[in-house]
């Protein structure tokens, strides 16, 4: 009886040895998929962009100030699309950066525990709303609302989607900034308050400077989200590439162009089809640069306590 039991156990043990050896290999192969994803993104963007520049001059792409992909005599200057994206990002930043940091300061420095427990989940709900819903909100509510103050505002414009993009990234900036503020040790606040500083003086001269790397990283990440934002701008900003600085006019962003081409039927193999990838590549470079800046800020300006 006992003998059999031990044999069984040894047999089991050998089977489990096989499992022990294969599991890490299987998990490692799964992990490789994340690397393959990056390679896949880079590969498709680079190969098709190179293809595009075989048809259209890269000099025109970088220097022309006109983007007119659907005309019979098309022009391919990326500038209006980048300008459109920047208009949206700047308006979004004007909305989201001060309010996001302000909200974070209130939640981390002034609010009672109870207030914080009520407000934080509400901000999380705001962060979870799909961007297509924000887009519908921009075109059906914010644009008409703004038009009642600013009559020359077009149906499609930069202002309304810009503001709504700001609202979309606000919870992200607020929550990351709050994390940064609450990692500042309490002894520093107490030191400042003990010297007779007011709460605001403590926040502005002690807490914020100490948390500046986290706050900076939060802002840059938020702006990177704004650059890649797609649905709000395709719904509410229109689809006319525009190289003027007027924020009351219709415009098109890089993401907006990608959606316009793919939701219509750009035949496979045309110039317009390949231009998708050149625009996607530009967008990818912008957001990657922002993410790297954010990581660099975190590393470079981190203060250890």
């Amino acid at each position, binding site marked *: 009886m006992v003998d059999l039991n031990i044999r069984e156990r040894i047999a089991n043990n050998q089977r489990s040895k096989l499992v022990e050896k294969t599991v890490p290999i299987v998990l490692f192969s799964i992990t490789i998929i994340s690397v393959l994803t990056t390679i896949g993104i880079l590969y498709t963007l680079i190969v098709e962009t190179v293809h595009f520049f075989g048809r259209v001059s890269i000099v025109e792409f970088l220097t022309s100030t006109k983007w007119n992909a659907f005309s019979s005599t098309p022009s391919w200057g990326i500038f209006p699309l980048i300008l459109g994206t920047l208009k949206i990002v700047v308006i979004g930043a004007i909305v989201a950066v001060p309010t996001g940091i302000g909200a974070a300061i209130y939640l981390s420095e002034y609010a009672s525990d109870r207030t914080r427990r009520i407000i934080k989940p509400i901000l999380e709900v705001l962060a979870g709303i*799909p961007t297509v819903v924000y887009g519908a909100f921009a075109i059906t509510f914010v644009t008409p609302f703004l038009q009642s103050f600013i009559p020359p505002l077009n149906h499609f414009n930069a202002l309304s989607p810009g503001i709504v993009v700001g609202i979309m990234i606000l919870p992200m900036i607020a929550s990351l900034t709050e994390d940064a503020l609450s990692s500042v040790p309490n002894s520093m606040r107490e030191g400042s308050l003990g010297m007779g500083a007011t709460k605001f003086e403590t926040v502005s001269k002690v807490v914020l400077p100490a948390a500046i790397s986290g706050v900076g990283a939060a802002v840059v990440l938020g702006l990177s989200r704004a650059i890649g934002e797609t649905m709000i701008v395709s719904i509410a900003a229109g689809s006319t590439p525009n190289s003027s600085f007027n924020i009351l006019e219709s415009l098109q962003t890089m993401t907006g162009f990608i959606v316009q081409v793919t939701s219509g039927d750009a035949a496979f193999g045309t110039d317009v089809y390949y231009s998708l990838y050149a625009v996607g590549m530009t967008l990818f470079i912008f957001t990657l640069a922002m993410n790297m800046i954010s990581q660099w800020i975190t590393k470079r300006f981190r203060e250890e306590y």
Partner: protein
Amino acid sequence: MLLDANVIEKKRSPRLMKNSFMKMLFLFSTLIGLVVLVVLLGTTLLDGWKYLTVDFFTNFSSSRPSRAGIKGAILGTLWLMAFTTPIAIFLSVGTALYLEEYAPKNKFTKFVETNIANLAGVPSVVFGLLGLTIFVRQFGLGNSVIAASLTLSLMIMPVIVVASQEALRTVPLAVREASIGMGASKWQTVSRIILPAAIPGIITGIILAISRAIGETAPLVVIGIPVALLTTPSSPLDSFQALPMQIYNWVKMPQAEFQNLTAAAIIVLLALLLMMNFVAIIIRNKYSKRF
């Protein structure tokens, strides 16, 4: 005399006033988000609730607003989630287990982690281009459920990996040592002790990531999911409609009635998301173990 009592006295009142003024300003910033949320939900409910009829749920999409419904969109979204969820879990939890439990601390592991952090910052529309090129064209899957599921799985993978890693990290070393000390092997410890202990955190991460995938529209537009379709998929290789695509399609329509249909569809989408978030919170509260 370094400190002049009079000067301090004189400056005190403006300093305190500045403090209360700034406090109001910070409170005001906090309330902006709440006000927007209330206005957004309020206008949507006002525009849409009358259109939430039985017909709205049982009709297919139509160019006539009176006959348009979301049957195709709802079923399509459910199909999409039914395939996205298992694929995303397989990829993400596998990756997190490797990185936390098996990976040696070397340059390659660090590279993989940085790479995942960077993938989290890639715009969803770029994932759409990846899906269009690789899954739709290269693999010849067309604009099918499975092509969209693979694209969305890769998109939400970084979120679940990071959440799972955090959950695995909260399992204390003592528990691992106890298991190994009792003669359990590495995989026995991981599969029977560590994973069950970390599962509430992992599930919360999965639900939050899936609810992000449900509302995601840009990648679906890019891989060419149709906006009008009179069939529901019967296999993962079939084409399908999706709820956010339906909203995007209706919001662009000029007729006023479509704006009400948009609002009604948004109510359904938000209700779905709210339900999932609620489940996530319950799981987090009920099963979270403290060691």
